[in-house]
């Protein structure tokens, strides 16, 4: 076992990383401590590589790890006393940690903590004030933007309710298979073991795989409201899919999947509002390009890509078309949702929309609950 002080330092270091949102298990910490036995403690880079191999589990975490490592193990290394700094008993206690907490970071964390406190009850709260049928029908077909602010909460609850009901239906739905599947020799043999002849054949059906969803939501200006409803709706549907990846964009692309996974959903919606970029128009093409560059590995033929935007693109329509084509080639299906389509007089004539339309498998509105319900029927391949 390595020196006690050193082991404790590693434990503290792991705690620091956890606070920086790296999910580290006790097992990993134990292994990290043990790995020090097999490393040259005088070689800072080697210790760095060793700890990184044990404590980091995905590339996105490397930058966080690097910053934390520098901050935590920096103390006294300037004097080239690397070995001493690492192994010496006078290890930097809590001292270096605050350095990570610049004002901004602290503020961020307070916010994060605030989210954790949010009560999640509402989503699951059962005895909802479910409106009577006629009232409900009216709610379902009304455009989201026509509701007043205090009605929106109620409507969000209704959205979840509808989605939950749909989820049950979608996951139970079975489609008839054309083939009977392959003969399952193992079970056939078992079934006929005592007969000496193969009389009864057993079949094995191909496994049905769940569909993956990638959501790209425009959160600029007026689209924000619709994005919120779509996200809420699909969030409640999510266990029907094998995976839901969510991005928001206006001028830049932001991946919000992790926020959606960890925290209370209502808080996430509020967070979306913070992410909203007021500075300018929407650059769908650029955002898609960014998606293709960094995240195209999320899309395969079992993936449905849903794009929610009104198509008011201030960027180059050429870029939009190229990037959308790139997505289309990889994806199982591309769905473009445009709430403006709910307006009977709307024509998709904006340059961006015109460029994108031929590349889209399904073009629909998502402006009210009825439209969302219809969407659910499209979410299988």
């Amino acid at each position: 076992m390595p020196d006690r002080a050193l082991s404790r330092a590693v434990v503290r270091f792991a705690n620091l990383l956890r606070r920086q949102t790296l999910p580290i298990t006790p097992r990993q910490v134990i292994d990290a401590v043990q790995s020090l036995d097999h490393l040259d403690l005088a070689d800072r880079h080697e210790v760095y590589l060793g700890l990184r191999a044990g404590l980091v589990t995905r590339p996105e975490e490397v930058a966080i790890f690097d910053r934390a490592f520098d901050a935590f193990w920096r103390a006294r290394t300037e004097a080239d006393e690397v070995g001493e700094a690492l192994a010496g008993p006078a290890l930097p206690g809590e001292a270096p940690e605050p350095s990570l907490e610049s004002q901004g970071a602290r503020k961020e964390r307070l916010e994060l903590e605030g989210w954790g406190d949010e009560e999640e009850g509402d989503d699951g709260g059962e005895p909802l004030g479910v409106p009577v049928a006629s009232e409900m029908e009216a709610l379902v077909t009304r455009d989201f933007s026509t509701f007043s602010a205090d009605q929106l909460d109620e409507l969000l609850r209704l959205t979840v309710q509808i989605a939950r009901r749909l989820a049950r239906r979608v996951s139970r739905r079975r489609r008839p298979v054309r083939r009977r599947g392959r003969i399952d020799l193992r079970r056939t043999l078992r079934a006929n073991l005592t007969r000496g002849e193969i009389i009864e054949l057993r079949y094995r059906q191909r496994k049905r795989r769940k569909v993956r969803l990638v959501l790209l939501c425009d959160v600029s200006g007026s689209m924000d409201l619709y994005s919120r409803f779509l996200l809420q709706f699909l969030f409640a549907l999510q266990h029907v899919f094998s995976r839901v990846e969510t991005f928001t964009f206006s001028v830049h692309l932001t991946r919000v999947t992790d926020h959606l996974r960890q925290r209370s959903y209502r808080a996430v919606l509020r967070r979306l509002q913070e992410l909203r970029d007021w500075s300018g128009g929407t650059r769908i093409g650029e955002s898609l390009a960014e998606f293709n560059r960094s995240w195209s590995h999320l899309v395969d033929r079992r993936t449905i890509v849903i794009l929610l935007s009104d198509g008011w693109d201030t960027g180059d329509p050429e870029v939009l078309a190229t990037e959308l084509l790139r997505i289309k080639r990889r994806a199982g299906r591309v769905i473009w949702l445009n709430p403006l389509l709910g307006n009977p007089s709307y024509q998709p004539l904006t340059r961006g929309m015109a460029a994108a339309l031929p590349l889209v498998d399904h073009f629909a509105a998502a402006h009210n609950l009825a439209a969302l319900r219809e969407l659910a029927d499209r979410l299988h391949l």
Partner: protein
Amino acid sequence: MREEIRKIQSLMESAEYVTDAPVATSVHLALTLRKPLLIEGHAGVGKTEVAKVMARMLETNLIRLQCYEGLDAAAALYEWNYQKQLLHIKLHEGGQRSVDQEEHEIFSESFLLKRPLLQAITQERSPVLLVDEVDRADEEFEAFMLEVFSDWQVTIPEIGTIKATHPPHVILTSNRVRELSDALRRRCLYLWIDYPSYDKEVTIVERKVPGINPRLAGEIARFMESLRRVRLAKVPGVAETLDWATALAALHADHLDETLVSETLGCVLKDADDIKRFRAEVGKAGLSPFLQTPS
């Protein structure tokens, strides 16, 4: 640097693998802590190669489990040889043996088809088990694998429990087609392999394509480096570099020029759009921007 790590590095070098400190350190820790090593990186950066080299280095067997969609326990662990069992039953049809005896006979080891995972735990000497492209397998399979990795024993109802006397060294690779579960990640050491630096790529080319003109090797590496900075749909990996270098060496080239690059472009770029864009780029400014040292 610790002596063992240096040794691993030189062993890997002598096994024809150009390595660096992160790779050597990870391999060293995977061997000493006996933890699986998860390697991620872009296509063609030599993830699989690490396992092959490790096997060569340890002078042990490499057992490869190629993952694909729908891979299940039967294909990974074991299956009974049904055809053989059927034949056996047929051949002994007129015999006097009881059903029990018959069953005992056909469910013995000689009717067992060992698949990679079972093979890996029944070796005389700890092998290297390569679970390739684990992101292609389903999540259920991942869970199943974790179970096997946790105690290295497998129970076959008809035979009994088989426990590994020499547990394998495990290397998992992933292209990030699907995000792997946290459970799997946490049980593994993690290594991200990036595209090689210029110097490393030159060394790789010279090592793997013996007899190549040094100037050409340098130009190839420089060219690849520039190419990877352009936004491409399919970014070429080291595998492409080596294909290309081999092709150029076979053509007895000693430096890159436009015609040569144009004729052999298919080795490097494998997407029609990329090729079109590249040609347009070269048509405008020539080849030289691709061969310059980045500022």
